[in-house]
């Protein structure tokens, strides 16, 4: 850890320690941040999360990263389907199934 020399740095560090002791831990805050994406948190929890994020770089990153994942799926729903790492054949219908469905559609289509 780098040495903190300035008075301001020391005071800030002491304040962060003091505040960190009184706030829920990272484990709880990560849980709350996830919950906040699906429901409205009570006021007390919202304040706790805000204060915790003020002093905790890890939880700040954590929050940004889970939002990144959420937005990835929400804003580009097709990209997941399009990027094809799967071996050939597993990303398209098998020939059997293709013939079966064609036959089915053909039969029913004619009678209608």
């Amino acid at each position, binding site marked *: 850890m780098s040495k903190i020399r300035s008075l301001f740095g020391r005071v800030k560090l002491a304040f962060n320690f003091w505040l*960190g002791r009184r706030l*829920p*831990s*990272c*484990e*709880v805050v*990560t*849980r709350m941040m*996830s*919950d906040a*994406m*699906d*429901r409205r948190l009570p006021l007390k929890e919202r304040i706790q999360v805000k204060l915790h994020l003020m002093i*905790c*770089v*890890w*939880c700040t*990153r*954590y929050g940004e*990263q*889970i939002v*990144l*994942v*959420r*937005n*990835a*799926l*929400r*804003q*580009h*729903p097709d*990209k*997941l*389907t*399009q*990027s094809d*790492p799967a071996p050939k054949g*597993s*990303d*398209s*219908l*098998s020939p059997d*199934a*293709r013939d*079966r*469905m*064609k036959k*089915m*559609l*053909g039969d*029913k*289509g004619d009678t*209608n």
Partner: protein
Amino acid sequence: MAMKALLFSVATGSKCVSALGVFALMYRQERRAGSESLIEKDKVTSRPGALDPAEWVDKHGDYLYRFARVRLRDDGLAEDCVQETFLAALKARASFAGNSSERTWLTGILKHKITDAFRAQGREKLVNLDLEVLLPVESADLFQRHGEWPGHFKAVEGPADWSMSPEEAYERNEFWLALKKCLDLLPPKMAKAFILRELDQVPASEIVETLNISQSNFWVLMHRARAQLRYCLERSWAAAR
């Protein structure tokens, strides 16, 4: 811009300005509708309104299959769903209004079939979730268990800086490959809840009903899913760069 104008007009309360704001809003919506119809025109390859069931398999089969496979993560089940979709579409083709493209229409039907499949699976195994089992091992290792700061991130294991804006990340193919791989690694129930919620944006109340789980179980599931995905992405994608 329209929103701003509207807000401003509300703030000032002047009728003239508020009328301006409303016009701006209308103009914007009109423009948006126009651009949507343009996109729609591009998508429709045959003439709109005319359905050709014989060509569905060739035209949309693979797309629908991939759509189902990403969500169901089961090749056989995905095939069944696509077949059922075609059947249902054939029966209901009289009701096809022609105001959306064929593919959009078929995808809509497929979504319902996928939800049905999820529901059927949920009914088969009516077990309450064992939350202890769902605890991701990796995530438990992330936090300090002893010492001065129990429950806080371990200094070495804390979330790393990905040093990339979301937009940049979305541009990269590796990101999507990693995300797909990580989604496949999730336990089935977790993946279902997460995919329904984020990919299809189904309201939480409906997911709870579909998967037959309790409200708080759902929140825990989502938390675990996000924690595991984030960790998996960091390890497989962010660290590899």
